[in-house]
């Protein structure tokens, strides 16, 4: 997969995740999510249809370290195990969007939250020729794992269970990534028109061998998706007792001029005896590092307030126009980026080294501290897991505090400083971030929209 293709897949997955989840949260309108990442079929969402699905069956991946695909280079030869996935529910979203006058369609498969508590269970053995091995058992909920559906010429859609940036197989134990098994994944092709009408079954059953990135094994699937009736987003009608107001949103696109600094986190296994024995983390130590400059997917500074404020006040709030900061207009800065994160772990004299190619950060700043600083956090997003055992760092784990100086927005370029947060637990691991990053952002194009929103 090309770098651009991988970037596109990640961006689609992240942003589509946001769109889908927004829809499911019923806090979403057809037109309020905008796709802004470069290279993806983004733009203004014109329509969205959701087709709920129940998921029957389960996916079982059995694997072992494979010298033929380089397990020695990663340090994965000692591991063998089984991952079982049972998503229970899901939904397809068919999104039609317009960007620069061109209308495009995007279809996504998202798996829903598990009523049973979790979707993915792993049991992984670690052999140790010189001593006692161990068994890692872990369970994770892969809800909201999203698979972009490939649209083919002729109106067909190809549904692949294991997406390149998916997280269905992700646990804290060692094992293959979804992307490793993409080419061997259960797959089905259906006519898009049939998909949109719902009421059909999509057969993703089958068994295939795989060998990639240090692991070889088999994928066995008994999964069948049973689609329900399509559910176009209902008109968002606010109850009469809820007050509404016209809200203006002025967005200025940002580009990244420079990224400096480094990120490093020390990882250690839990000292709790039961946890470290069941998760096989007793005595484990290691590091997580960003190995390359981040690829920025989107960056914006956004001013929001009642539309009765003059447009000029929003420009003042953004720092584009001089003047005192207007009251009643909030300002926020968001930067979404991805960067390869390498992991190196050592346990019982053996080591494991691997890279998560698309680890993501969301930097979000808003409000103002004393002295007028913008403050916020940089949180993990996207797949941070590698094939080695390690912390899951699911989406939304803050890794840095973020700040920008009081007068930052008055300049054509401004910087965001990221400082590491205090050590935190990851349910079996202790993660201690260090280092620091700075982002220099360059101001860009401004656009605005006005929407009626509830204010109660």
């Amino acid at each position, binding site marked *: 997969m090309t770098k651009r293709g991988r970037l596109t897949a990640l961006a689609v997955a992240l942003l589509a*995740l*946001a769109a889908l*989840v*927004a829809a499911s*949260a019923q*806090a*979403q*309108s057809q*037109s*309020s999510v905008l796709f*802004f990442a470069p290279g993806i079929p983004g733009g203004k969402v014109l329509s969205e249809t959701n087709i709920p699905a129940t998921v029957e069956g389960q996916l079982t991946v059995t694997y072992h370290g494979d010298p033929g695909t380089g397990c020695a280079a990663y340090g994965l030869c000692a591991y063998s195990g089984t991952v*079982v996935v*049972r998503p*229970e*529910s899901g939904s397809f979203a068919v999104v039609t969007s317009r960007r620069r006058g061109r209308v495009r369609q995007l279809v996504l498969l998202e798996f829903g*939250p*598990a009523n*049973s*508590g*979790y979707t993915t269970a792993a049991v992984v053995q670690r052999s140790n020729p010189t001593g006692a091995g161990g068994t890692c*058992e*872990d*369970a994770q*909920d892969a809800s909201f794992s999203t698979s972009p559906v490939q649209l083919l010429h002729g109106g067909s859609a190809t549904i692949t269970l294991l997406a390149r940036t998916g997280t269905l197989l992700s646990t804290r134990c060692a094992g293959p990534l979804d992307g490793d098994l993409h080419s061997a994944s259960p797959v089905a092709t259906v006519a898009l028109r049939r998909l949109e009408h719902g009421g059909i079954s999509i057969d993703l059953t089958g068994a295939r061998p795989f060998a990639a990135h240090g692991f070889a094994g088999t994928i066995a699937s008994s999964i069948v998706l049973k689609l329900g009736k399509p559910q176009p987003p209902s008109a*968002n*009608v*606010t109850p009469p007792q809820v007050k*509404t107001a016209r*809200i203006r*949103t002025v967005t200025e696109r940002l580009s990244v001029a420079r990224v400096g600094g480094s990120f490093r986190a020390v990882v250690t296994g839990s000292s*709790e005896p*039961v*946890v470290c*024995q*069941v998760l096989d983390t007793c005595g484990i130590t290691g590091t997580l590092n960003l190995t390359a400059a981040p690829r920025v997917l*989107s960056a*914006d500074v956004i001013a*929001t307030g009642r539309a009765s404020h003059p447009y000029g006040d929003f420009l003042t709030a953004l720092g584009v126009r001089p003047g005192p900061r207007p009251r009643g207009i*909030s300002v*926020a800065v*968001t930067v*979404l980026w991805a960067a390869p994160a390498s992991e190196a772990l050592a346990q019982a004299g053996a080591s494991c080294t691997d890279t998560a190619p698309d680890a993501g950060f969301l930097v*979000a*700043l*808003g409000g103002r*501290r004393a002295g007028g600083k913008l*403050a916020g*956090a940089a949180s993990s*997003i996207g797949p941070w897991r590698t094939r080695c055992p390690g912390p899951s760092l699911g989406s*939304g*784990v*803050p890794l840095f505090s973020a700040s920008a100086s009081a007068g930052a927005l008055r300049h054509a370029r401004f910087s965001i400083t990221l400082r590491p947060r*205090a050590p*935190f*637990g990851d*349910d*079996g691991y202790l993660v201690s971030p260090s280092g620091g990053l700075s982002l220099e952002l360059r101001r860009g194009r401004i656009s605005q929209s006005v*929407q*009626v929103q*509830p204010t109660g």
Partner: protein
Amino acid sequence: LRNAVARRLRAAHGTGVVVALVALALAAPAAADESLAPSGSLTYTWHGDPARGCAAANLCGVQGALTVEAQGTTTGGTSNRITQVGIEFSAGTVRVLGAPGAAPGACVDVPSGTFGGSLVIRHGPHGSLFGQVEPPLSSGRCVGPTEQDLGGIRFPVVKTGTERRSFDLRSTQAFAAGPFSGSVVSTLVLTATANGGLGGLSGGGSGSFFGPPPVVVGVPSRRKVLLERVVLRDRLRSLSGALDVAFSGGSGGFCVTLGSCGASGTLALTLPGFDRTLTITATRVVRRRVSARQALADLRHGRLSFETGVPPPASLTTQVTETFQAPDGATCVDTAVAREAALFFGDAPGARGSSITLSDPDGAGVVRSHCPGPGDSDAFGNFAGNPFGGIARATVAPAALTSGDTAVRLVKPGSTTGLGYVATRSGAIELELSLVRVLHAGTIQVTR
């Protein structure tokens, strides 16, 4: 029910975190009184205690642990001198060694699901503060404490500062749970940060939902309508019977991590001493006013729709008796009480008349005891927690609501393949329904 609402709000928070990634600009401003940064964790550990009778239940070798981490930022507020602060937790993983029959002895579960839980700080007596986890944590399907055991733990809170308050919840507390003794170590600290932070943006929080608010595409006009309405007060009490579940652990797949492969057992769920009145409202829109007699006749003929409701108090007491037999023949027997189930009253789906549904809105695990075993969704299906599925349901003919004593049977026959368990249901809880009085019958005018 309060917890069920909280869970739904938390779900919205969880999604809101993601929504915020691309839609911060559309976010409603946080209604935060003060911003707080939580850190630390709660670590529960337990073990079979001979002094508490673990030998009789074959549970003396059990050691378990559950850790939940504070995450994100949160907000606190004071209203009517009541401080409310919510700390969002990660979804904690239960890990248990030495469970009966589990080979090599481990059970792993994530009982709180995707969205974890939260800790709420409230005022106690004499100006003290305490924190409680809501909904309570538990050992899930693994052997260990139930929600009822852990829900009663109160974490002492030390408040510092006046204008910018911080809260220190660090403590170690012992607890007892059936045949287990255990402790919970709290390293939780809530540190005040400056106002105007990003609230729940970076992962959880109790202040506000950060997703884009819905865009108003139409405000419905208000108009006056006539409603034919009957309001009844009925009495509902349990007579006898139990919902019986026979379960087995299957082979391969999730039974390995749950330690249930080859296991089998039974559950018997009852409603001991249930007796309460409920107010039942049935309506329909009409063009002309109707008499009380006509309204009651229309009710009996199934022409009115029942409003879905929960007879107060919202939660009721259930009792489960479990027998769990491990593949090696070791048996665990236990009885546990839960106070989280609720009865929903509403229209009967797909039929005339009304329905009474017993459900577990919290997903608390009303079928969980201190032995390992299936959870509610494994025993009763994925809709065990909602009024459209539930643990069991009775259909009531409309005429029965206005008559004397009527027998009602809560049933849910069938089988469910859950996570690590296959369950087959039988039996019924017998209830008696009787009319206390008609509170209203006739026509009212409402604005819609």
